[in-house]
């Protein structure tokens, strides 16, 4: 119980730091929402007036505290550039990006675990060597390029989907999920490769430990030893990795949403950074950070479920 309270407290602190960093960042980077909004029609007088209107003249801490206060009450403010409430803007986009990251996460797991296990099981065979090299190659290709290649191969050559033909989930859930499959794959591939490698070496490392010998000595078959004993142990570093990967997946979705023309929060984030639209950026990053931290929190708990050694008394 105490542990959970402590964890939650530190989670909250971390999220606060994140949101403050965002604010701080915006106060040091050049350009401000007023300049962005007025564009080339800006004149000094207009700028002053707009800054006043947007409340940009107040000192940073004041703005920050006001923002965080209203944020806590669920009011995320109004977008400077679109003039609509941030909440309504995000409402339609969060599910898209969540779906994208969720799907890539699932893809990573679904592809890498069986592949990693087989690569370990058939170590030193041709299969394992080929996956090794393939892994390295996939790992080395930047996500945007993977995206282009997938668009080209699956979209233009195989005609599996229409590049750029994003289907909104409001129109057709099936079409939406199907379209998302390809960008999700583009995000997932490099991480999958890393995970395969990690899982393989983790399984091999565990397989050398003494308890594996004990398991054999009781008459377990090779598969039983692998699935009942080794795998669970080998998954521990993989879980840490997956937790840490999460923020990378989000980062990947920022880029991939551009490549596949998906109107998710990644694109909105990049545009909003360009527009210096603090309320939007602040909200997005804080939410994303919260989720990343929260998932890591879940990973921590998962850890304790899987690994009794990390459980604490009391």
């Amino acid at each position, binding site marked *: 119980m105490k542990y959970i309270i402590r964890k939650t407290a530190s989670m909250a602190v971390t999220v606060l730091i994140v949101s403050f960093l965002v604010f701080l960042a915006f106060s040091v980077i050049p350009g401000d929402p007023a300049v962005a909004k007025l564009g080339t029609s800006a004149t000094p007088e207009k700028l002053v007036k707009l800054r006043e209107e947007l409340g940009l003249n107040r000192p940073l801490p004041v703005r920050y505290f006001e923002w965080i206060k209203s944020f806590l009450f669920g009011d995320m403010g109004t977008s400077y550039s679109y003039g609509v409430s941030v909440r309504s803007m995000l409402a339609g986009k969060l599910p898209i990006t969540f779906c994208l990251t969720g799907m890539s996460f699932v893809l990573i797991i679904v592809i890498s675990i069986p592949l990693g296990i087989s690569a370990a099981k058939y170590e030193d065979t041709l299969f394992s060597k080929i996956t090794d090299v393939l892994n390295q190659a996939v790992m080395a290709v930047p996500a945007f390029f993977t995206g282009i290649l997938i668009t080209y191969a699956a979209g233009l050559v195989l005609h599996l989907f229409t590049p750029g033909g994003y289907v909104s989930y409001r129109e057709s859930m099936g079409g939406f999920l199907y379209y998302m499959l390809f960008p999700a794959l583009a995000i997932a591939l490099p991480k999958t490769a890393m995970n395969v490698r990690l899982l393989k070496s983790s399984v091999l490392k565990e397989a050398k*430990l*003494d*308890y594996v010998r*004990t398991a054999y000595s009781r008459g*377990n078959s090779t598969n039983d030893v692998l699935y009942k004993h080794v795998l669970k*142990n080998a998954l521990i570093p993989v879980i840490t990795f997956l937790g840490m990967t999460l923020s990378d997946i989000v980062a990947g979705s920022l880029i991939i949403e551009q490549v596949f023309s998906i109107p998710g929060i990644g694109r909105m984030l990049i545009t909003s950074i360009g527009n210096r639209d603090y309320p939007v950026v602040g909200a997005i990053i804080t939410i994303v950070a919260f989720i990343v931290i929260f998932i890591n929190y879940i990973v921590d708990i998962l850890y304790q479920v*899987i690994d009794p050694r990390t459980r604490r008394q009391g």
Partner: protein
Amino acid sequence: MLDVTDLNIEFHDHLTPETVVNDFDLHMDYGEIVGLVGESGSGKTMSALAIAGLLSRKNMKKRGRIEFEGTDILNCPRNELRSLQGKDISMVFQEPMNSLDPLKKIGYQVEESLKIHTDMSAKNRKRLALRALSEVELPDPKGIYELYPHELSGGMRQRVMIAAAIISKPKLLICDEPTTALDVTIQAQILELLKKINKRYNTAILFISHDLSLVRKLCKRVLVMYRGNVVESGEAEQVFSHPEAEYTRLLIAAIPKFEKLRKD
């Protein structure tokens, strides 16, 4: 029951192949207790593992013959070997710290061999497991059944290993230094337990140790190993009172005696 002839084990993962066991011979009958002593690194564990059919590393070569009740352990298919392991042959490992799966409850690990080799109900298995745990003098078997290995001390883990090894009443029990991690009082209890098991189930025991006084208390026959070779074997009393090999003599001389060293 067990016949080992000319067992050779070679490692190939260094630049030059390295023989760690050389022409090992051993014969054991049902219900016999045999001691295996020797300095650290002399190949005791390797020989034991070979007998239990647990040496399967690729970069190692095994030659010779190990026959257990007519089965050729070194060359029989894995499936056949499996049906022996945990049922007829059980092993207690040297390293109690690492030899238990850290993520599985003690109960599961103790009764695993029953699960594999019999179709006993879960309830029955648990009953037997609890009995085995109490046989090794663990306090509160019910509580321990639900614990994880890291929650036990080294001595307790060692006893859990023994409980898991005897639960299926094997014909051959290999104990690799089962008492090193324990303090004297518990050591004594374990020896009693092994004797009891040997009597009750007619289990043959291969007892590996470097504590000669223990071996002397427990075993009828001993083998002395030195650098991969068996340098001496025979009736325990005979070996201890009239050691033939130089190394055996050294070993015996090194047994701590209950007397002042300062005074010599």
